[in-house]
């Protein structure tokens, strides 16, 4: 397994910090939003956009680009943050989150350059990702498709239809990442409708599975560098994360799945996160 240098990991961690700060910034501009699931995904998104995905921000419809679908669309603040950081659109757009006639609402909009699918209804993204991976294979384009799933989202049965078909179709160019922060809107996932044994379920569905710490940039990049985990199988990364990661009062509580973000809260959050390099 290739290992990434301290300099690379430090650069990625800094991008992840910028994602978190931008999430709070966008949701402060909006007045409220999905802090918890956006910040739990920040390290994964930073690694994807600054280490793994093959993209051309200046040409978002480049046919051979890698595809990323944020199936847990309520984490859109993190997606637009990382897209802005990657140069898909000006940073100032983040201050227009939830605006009137915006392409930056609570959920991703395919009309915004860099967004591959309008998501938000849960249990949609993996099927769309299967279609994208198939399209790449049929056209011999060689691009890779990554879908990020929420944990609570996996309660939607459509995910399991998609999981079955991805393995049946031997889509090795398809990777799913579960942002496993263990908390959904109304409480802990295990109390609402438990997922365990999660890795066993996916293995039984024909996926090659790896579990990792979704905030450890060395582990994240090592897993991405190892894709696909097995020939002829889709790959699943179960990333153990902390909801609201980076700000103590928002961590590990369903109260920050979605909440209001006023001026004082915002200042406290930025203080805790600290300045990027």
């Amino acid at each position, binding site marked *: 397994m290739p290992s990434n240098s301290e300099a690379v990991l430090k650069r990625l961690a800094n991008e992840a910090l910028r994602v978190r700060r931008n999430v709070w910034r966008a949701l402060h501009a909006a007045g409220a939003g999905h802090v918890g699931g956006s910040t739990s995904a920040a390290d994964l998104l930073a690694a994807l956009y600054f280490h793994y995905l093959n993209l051309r921000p200046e040409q978002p419809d480049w046919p051979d680009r890698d595809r990323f679908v944020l199936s847990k669309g309520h984490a859109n603040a993190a997606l637009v943050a990382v897209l802005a950081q990657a140069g898909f659109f000006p940073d100032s757009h983040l201050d227009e989150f939830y605006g009137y006639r915006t392409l930056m609402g609570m959920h991703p909009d395919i009309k915004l350059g860099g967004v591959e*699918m309008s998501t938000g209804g849960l249990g949609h993204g993996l099927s769309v990702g299967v279609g994208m991976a198939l399209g790449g294979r049929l*056209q011999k384009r060689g691009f890779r498709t990554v879908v990020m799933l929420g944990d609570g989202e996996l309660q939607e049965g459509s995910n399991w239809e998609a999981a079955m078909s991805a393995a049946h179709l031997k889509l090795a160019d398809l990777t799913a990442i579960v942002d496993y922060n263990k908390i959904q809107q109304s409480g802990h996932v295990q109390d609402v409708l438990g997922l365990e044994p999660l890795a066993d379920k996916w293995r039984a569905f024909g996926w090659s599975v790896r579990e990792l710490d979704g905030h450890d940039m060395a582990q994240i990049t090592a897993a991405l560098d190892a894709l696909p985990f097995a020939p002829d199988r889709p790959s699943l990364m179960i990333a153990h994360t902390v909801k609201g990661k980076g700000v103590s009062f928002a961590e590990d509580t369903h109260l920050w799945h979605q909440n209001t973000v006023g001026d004082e809260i915002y200042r406290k959050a930025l203080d805790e996160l600290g300045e990027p390099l």
Partner: protein
Amino acid sequence: MSAMPESAVSQAADQTRLAFGLAVGELAERDDSVVAISADSVDLIGLRGLVEKHPERVVEAGIAEQNAMGIASGLATTGMRPYLCGYAPFITARSMEQLRNDVAYANQRVVIGAAASGVSLGVSGGTHHALEDLALMRALPNMTAIVPADAYQAWHAVWATREIDGPVYIRLGGRVAEPPVTARDAAFRVGRADCLKDGDDVAIIACGCMVVEALAAAEALAGQGVAARVLNMHTIKPLDGDAVLAAAAETRGIVSAEEHRVTGGLGGAVAELLARENPTRMRMVGMPDEFAIVGPTDKVREGYGLSKANIVKNCLELLG
């Protein structure tokens, strides 16, 4: 070549569902981006030939319509032209959220071939009848909804999808005969009704399997001195408003005829337009606001008045 070729006529002259699959197979020969997606519907929809010749061009999603719909959307985003095939009752209602979000909201070029619509699976009962599918499609922005009157039009409709930059729903029949009512090489334009018979006493606006009944009704009415106009409204969305408004202005009333609930279907579409633009006396022949009884298709249709006789009755009542 948009007219159904002889080779297809011999297999599918009275089956819109088979014409759809054969046309997709023909398109696939000419266009590398065309791909079919089956929800366990290969034989239902005439895809067996394509499967045997180019297996990689038919994605089998199994009995999993939600996933099939999402796959179709994902394929379309990569530049492929997916033709999704399934049973009308399942490929609409079962996967309605995927259809709304991933296909219509994301405005992807997905063509849905929905076989076994209406009460064509009569004995299967209400779980297998599709009598609200057009209402669902009509309510979706970006959607084009087509109801071919026969296999020849189904072929034309598939061909016409090449020029439509958005999702398309094509409503198809089941395993019951659908006799041809149009000329094989007749012009077909999406959104433009065919005037199959002119007349200025009453206008019958029909779609799908009711077009043949409408023509028969017009003939019977002619014997009674009533000149009925017959419009084949093969496109439900966008509706040919010009043809409807002309019929309203040039006749004394309108009778709609469809194998669908009158709430939300063709009759509803015509009535909504007329209420806005030119309130006109109307009768609606179609399924009432109830789940249909179970029985052989022809008897169920007859029982609900989806027939020549009932169209004639409604026309005469309207003319008073």
